[in-house]
């Protein structure tokens, strides 16, 4: 059964989630992956959207984090201050899903400005949203982003959300309670931080993707894990689940 690289990326992300985990998700790829996991292998997965819906169970993909289906299917709906202060900040959330416009070698994320300077940027991006505190306080962060030289940069134009800062020890120094980005899932493969240097290195290649292509799409000298693996191809069941979810939307 053939599949697209985006489908591979989404399914690889969904596989990382387990029943019983609590997941803080944004709209787009993270929401698709989290709902796919809940509809397939992780039925007990708890989805939290920053609009204040805890335990949302949408039967289609929400159009925005304010989609009525989230409030209507949630175990509880709380205010925006409460979702950030009582639920995210104390580290109650297992996994935070984030995207990125730029991602640097230490997993720091830029979603603010690209090019020029802050006051006169070449491209003005949407900004921080909930990301800085998701990156700080979730027990672990999974980044989902398409891999390209434009996105995977040696150093980001602006640090909106902190990964490992400038390297080992920085998260502790900054008092960031979560573990940081433990995995970066792309359309080409999977990266994870080197345990010693915290620099992102390639741990998985998606089926049929040549290593050179991933190096080509990375703005730094990409290292590979000693045990570099190939991701398992999407199963028919995974693809059926993903496509059913998308067609229901």
């Amino acid at each position, binding site marked *: 059964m053939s599949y697209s690289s985006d489908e591979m990326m989404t399914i690889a992300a969904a596989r990382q989630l387990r029943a019983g985990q609590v997941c803080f998700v944004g709209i787009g790829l993270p929401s698709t992956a989290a709902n796919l996991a809940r509809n397939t292998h992780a039925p007990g997965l708890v989805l939290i959207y920053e*609009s204040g819906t805890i335990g949302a169970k949408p039967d289609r993909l929400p*159009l925005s984090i*304010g989609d009525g289906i*989230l409030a209507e299917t949630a175990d509880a709906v709380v205010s925006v*201050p409460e979702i950030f202060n009582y639920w995210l900040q104390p580290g109650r959330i297992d996994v935070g899903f984030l995207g990125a416009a730029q991602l640097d070698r230490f997993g720091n994320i830029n979603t*603010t400005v690209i090019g020029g300077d802050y006051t006169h940027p070449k491209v003005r991006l949407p900004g*921080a949203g909930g990301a800085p505190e998701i990156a700080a306080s979730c027990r672990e962060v999974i980044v989902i982003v398409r891999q390209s030289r434009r996105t995977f940069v040696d150093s980001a134009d602006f640090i909106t*959300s902190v990964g490992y800062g400038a390297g080992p020890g920085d*998260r502790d120094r900054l008092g960031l309670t979560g573990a940081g980005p433990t995995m970066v899932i792309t359309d080409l493969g999977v990266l994870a931080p080197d345990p010693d240097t915290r620099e992102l290195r390639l741990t998985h290649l998606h089926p049929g993707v040549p290593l050179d292509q991933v190096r080509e799409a990375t703005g730094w000298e990409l290292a590979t894990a000693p045990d570099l693996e190939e991701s398992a191809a999407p199963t028919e069941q995974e693809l059926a689940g993903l496509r059913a979810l998308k067609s229901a939307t």
Partner: protein
Amino acid sequence: MAEVISLEDAVANLVHDGDSVALEGFTHLIPFAAGHEIIRQGRRDLVLIRMTPDLIYDQLIGVGCARKLVFSWGGNPGVGSLHRFRDAVENGWPAPLELEEHSHAGMANRYVAGASGLPFGVLRGYRGTDLPAQTPNIKPITCPFTGEELTAVPALNPDVGIVHAQRADRAGNVQLWGITGIQKEVVLAARNSLVTVEEIVDELDPRPGGMVIPSWAITYVAAAPAGSQPSYSLGYTIRDNDFYVAWDGIARDRETFRAWIDEHVLHDGVPA
């Protein structure tokens, strides 16, 4: 006690050139009707405050109502960019737009501090990011008991706070349900407030997941049926997602944007 008056009168009485105005509604109950009334009344030099500048702020910025934006996420939710916002920041059109930028958690705590009569709020936020370097409104604060360093943000107390809700009774008590977001905090933090509602009813029967904001804590209540369209009001209207998608094309070009405003906002309800 809140006065129940027309949207036109409420905006005329509350919103003046140069005011700081927060039109809130965290992805739900976004006060589009009130924003359009501000455009029709031609307000200028506003300091616009909103966690998620949505299409309504793209419109206010595009027509030149704003001199500054205080925000935490400025995109077209689920679609992409806010092109009028980007044009103002990247090219200064129709006027330069000063930015003060925060995270959602920071903005939420600024409203909470404002609603609580405190000058600042405290959170675990911003540490290690480039955001504090861009504004004096993010500072470190040390716990007097543990010595731990955290982050402080100043209270937000807008001149005017405007939100949309499902219902009010004739005494001006307001009821909303579903995603309640930051609505109550904005009303309580603002010096003056306006709540637009889908309908005014004789009695507010209790609703699960609902909250009531008592009339005496609100300045004005105005009826604005479908007043959150193209966003939505749970139980009344649904999000017009096609419009959110179409807005990308409308707002990309200055001329098509102006034409849309002329047709749909300025001549709103006036026969062509």
